[in-house]
């Protein structure tokens, strides 16, 4: 029953697309805007299995590998950075006074607006794309993690002190474990923005990558290729999200004990 309900909106969208595509193809069999589902499936099969005629490489897998490397690199660096900054801001009043205003202002800078600066300063290679993702999602994650550290009841900190805990032990054994689940959920929330920044950077300047390929074939109006890539990116994003959710559930059983 639940499965049916879950599947219903998907089925409706597919039917709507099929009908619209059918109507356009009936008028003009050479229409490129809404290719028939069968055509898309055919194209997808070709893209996933057949290599490039000249080099023999399967372009889609190369694009996927390049994009995922950039995405995971950027998100990983952003996670490490925001975790350390968030802990420092949340735990040390001096650091909070110094950094929280700065982070709040930096988080307001539109990341895509500084993309040209990154291209000028860091070149058109991998570095500028990874840095764009890092700059795009770190400030927001830092602010949220710092707030989560501040939300830990004062009673717990005092209790830890009466058990003889030093500041280091409070950070490692009281604050860090309670912030980690929040970090995972932050990463899940940030993945959407991270994909946005990745595809934008690849669209502007790149020679391989999922976003680059979509914007490349746009010139030939190859809707079947674009749709295949869009579905593939969606699937990758969904799997990443699901993996993080599972990790969070496995690693932090105490989060769910109260539910």
């Amino acid at each position, binding site marked *: 029953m639940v499965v049916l309900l879950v599947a219903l909106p998907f089925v409706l969208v597919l039917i709507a697309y099929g009908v619209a595509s059918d109507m356009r193809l009936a008028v003009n069999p050479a229409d490129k805007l809404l290719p028939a589902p069968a055509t898309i499936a055919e194209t997808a099969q070709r893209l996933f299995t057949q290599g490039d005629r000249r080099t023999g490489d399967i372009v889609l897998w190369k694009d996927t590998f390049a994009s995922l490397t950039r995405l995971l690199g950027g998100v990983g660096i952003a996670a490490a950075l925001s975790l350390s900054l968030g802990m420092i801001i949340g735990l040390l009043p001096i650091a909070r006074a110094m950094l929280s205003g700065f982070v709040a202002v930096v988080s307001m800078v539109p990341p895509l607006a500084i993309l040209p600066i990154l291209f000028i300063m860091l070149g058109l290679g991998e570095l500028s794309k990874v840095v764009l993702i890092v700059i795009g999602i770190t400030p927001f994650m830092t602010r949220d993690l710092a707030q989560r550290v501040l939300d830990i*009841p004062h*009673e*717990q900190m*005092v*209790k*830890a*002190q*009466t*058990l*003889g*805990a*030093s500041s*280091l*032990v409070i950070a*490692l*054994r*009281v604050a860090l*474990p*309670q912030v980690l689940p929040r970090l995972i959920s932050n990463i899940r929330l940030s993945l959407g923005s991270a994909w946005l920044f990745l595809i934008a950077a690849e669209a502007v300047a790149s020679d391989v990558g999922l976003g680059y390929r979509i914007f490349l074939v746009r010139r030939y109006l190859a809707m079947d290729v674009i749709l295949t890539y869009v579905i593939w990116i969606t699937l990758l994003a969904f799997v990443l999200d699901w993996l993080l959710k599972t990790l969070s559930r496995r690693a*932090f*059983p*105490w989060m769910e*004990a*109260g539910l």
Partner: protein
Amino acid sequence: MSFVTVSNVWQAYGGRSILERVSVSVEEGEFVSIVGASGCGKSTFLRLLLADERPTRGEIRIDGGAPAQEPNPERGVVFQRYSVFPHLTVRENLIAGEGFATVLGRLRGARRRAAVERADAMLERIGLNHVADHYPAALSGGMQQRLAIGQAMTAKPRVLLLDEPFGALDPGTRVAMHEFLTELQRETRMTVFMVSHDLEEAFKLGDRVLVFDKPRRDPQDPGLFGATITYDFDARDGGIPFQNTLERYPTLAVG
């Protein structure tokens, strides 16, 4: 020489007096209940004992030592809520009572095995051995408070401070907790300070009941004067003093 000495302590927040002229000395092993109306500074007094705050004037010494600058292992504490760590299992919470004092907050090897053994003994003592591997969120309010008391005891404090520890519990659980605490205190002879807003509880558990109130009031400026200890009751023998004098000092008997 008394064990805990509070001498002429004043506490004010930005010109608003909370406590004034508080002096009291408590012997080792005494159970002191602290009562008073809301906002009369009894929780402030407990925070001062805890060294979570420093008094504006006066000092608090435990066993003649220097006044503490921040909470330390000499003081054990149980709050009304948030006293246990939600991310540690019941057993880990007890082990933390010993492990947090190390450099990285973790015990390894033989020391950990010994700590686990002691933790299991304590679990038996506080009646939580059947939920040793559960997380605190899965425990009832009474079980959480028992765990919090057990955890505080594991660190072997010299003074145990309780801030309305049973305030959030239902009446039945509360009575059970009273028995548990009385028994534990009789066994360990720990010096205990307990803030309570329940007079009956205060007299039932305490050897001594301190009442906080404002002796002076300024109607134009309510924040001018702070509260102090207005009554210091002997609550032993059901709150009726001298009834056992003859049993204690048989030589006083006539004839």
